[in-house]
């Protein structure tokens, strides 16, 4: 699977290269120093890529120089991701809970050995927008369609999904009740082991209803994936610990959208 996600592609002028990463079929073409990139998505998770659509959504990019070899690398989405817990989740005071969520990656297209020249970033899955915050301030995030899970099974791994382990630690004097949580993926790395993609562990410590949660990115491979290799670095240089709003607490639900 590592081969299917992290790819080096040799392009020949005017020839279309195509590959599949989960539901995404990616089409690349080169013409002198111009790069052409198109994509399409279907319900399948593996197999041959789709045929080039009748009307492809070509993006045409002029590069400073010609590049024969192109690198495809998985990266986290460019915004935070809001994870649904399906039902209201209660974490007793002083209790800890380890949950996992699976986040679809974007495919970053760069010239080989030139990580700094980002030609494009193509989402493997088109994620819906959501708002994390209140009506007057907050942040635009992606809504994750899958829920946070306590237990992982082998069949939950997909070539386009990164598993993010999160440790929720309720240090407040009250029970923590929430239905959604916001994961700042820009500070996470991606690792790969036996074809499974993993993010570094996030420790979320909740101190109370009106204060933000402390989020600590461990910056190391999670225990479940010991010996995994680093695939991509975080988008934002890692500050190991930040204090941000993380949970959509039940009180917020009473604010109607009308």
């Amino acid at each position, binding site marked *: 699977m590592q081969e299917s996600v992290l790819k080096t592609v040799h392009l020949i002028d005017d020839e279309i290269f195509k590959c599949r990463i989960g539901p995404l079929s990616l089409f690349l073409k080169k013409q002198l120093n111009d790069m052409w990139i198109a994509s399409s998505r279907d319900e399948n998770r593996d197999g041959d890529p789709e045929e080039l659509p009748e009307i492809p959504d070509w993006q045409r990019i002029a590069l400073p120089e010609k590049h024969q070899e192109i690198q495809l690398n998985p990266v986290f989405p460019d915004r935070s991701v*809001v994870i649904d817990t399906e039902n209201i989740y209660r974490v007793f005071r002083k209790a800890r809970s380890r949950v996992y969520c699976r986040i679809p990656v974007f495919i970053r297209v760069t010239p080989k050995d030139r990580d700094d020249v980002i030609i494009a970033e193509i989402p493997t899955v088109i994620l*819906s*927008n959501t*708002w994390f915050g209140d*009506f*007057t*301030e907050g942040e*635009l995030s992606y*809504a994750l369609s899958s829920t946070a899970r306590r237990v992982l099974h082998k069949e939950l791994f997909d070539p386009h999904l990164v598993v993010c382990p999160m440790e929720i630690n309720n240090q407040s004097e009250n029970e923590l009740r929430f239905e959604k949580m916001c994961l700042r993926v820009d500070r996470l790395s991606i690792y790969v082991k036996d074809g499974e993609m993993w993010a570094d562990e996030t420790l979320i410590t909740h101190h109370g209803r009106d204060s933000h949660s402390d989020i600590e990115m461990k910056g190391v491979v999670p225990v479940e994936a010991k010996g995994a290799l680093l695939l991509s670095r975080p988008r934002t240089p890692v500050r190991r610990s930040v204090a941000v709003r993380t949970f959509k607490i039940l009180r917020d639900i009473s604010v109607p959208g*009308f």
Partner: protein
Amino acid sequence: MDFFTGLFEGYLTEARVLQLIRIATIIVVGITLLLFLKRYLGRYVTKQYTPHYGMLIGKLVFYIGIALILVMVLQDLGFSLTPLLGAAGILGIALGFASQTSVSNVISGFFLIAEQSFKVGDVVKVGENVGVVLSIDTLSVKIRMFDNRFLRVPNETMIKSQFINITRFPIRRIDCNISVAYKEDLSRVRDILFDVAENIPFSLKEPPPLLIFDKYGSSSIDLLFVAWAVREDFLKLRNALNMGIKERFDKEGIEIPFPHVSVYAGSASDPLPVDFISAGKTIDRSDIAGKD
């Protein structure tokens, strides 16, 4: 000729020429520096903060600078500033009475800036006009309307009247007024509406879309369906939502009724009796039935 010679000899002395050169230098160099400073500070503050503050700083620096240059020139010309300021005070009162509207606009401008109800770049609705705020000036607010017309609203009007800042908050609600026929299953209609919103990526999941039963209309059941988008996606979502709803209703056979009127004579269950009249005589209904 003697007059001009006398003028040059009597007035344009060497000291006077030097003084004029000095004044010209103050004006030229001062204004050039001022324009440069205004531009530099304006750009710097715009980059660091917002275009609104950039414009304010630029104007503040420019007007203070012009006042300083004026004072320097007057001092160089030998005017004493004390009586001038006194005269300016009297003149100010006279002008104030004469130009109450302008003064009111200037003061209103300060309040508008201090209140920060809108900033340069915001989209505002003033009366029936909607547009982007270009600048908040001494006397008026300049607005570029979306059809590219220029709108000037006096500051006093902005202070006195209601206006709506459309882009103040980061997310906006889209309202879709929908009518369906009385025969339709409303829970199916609800499922379709939510499904349409869910399949539009820029329709926000949170705050969630909402369906509100509006009223039993004369020809239809009227519903209000609302969904949210970030302000930049407002128009995109409005179009996608309305077009998506129409498309899905057509596909699912949900009727969007036209206004219609049912006319009854006496009883709602009986047909309306019709008499055909021809050339002054009434045709018996049984005759028509027989012909059929």
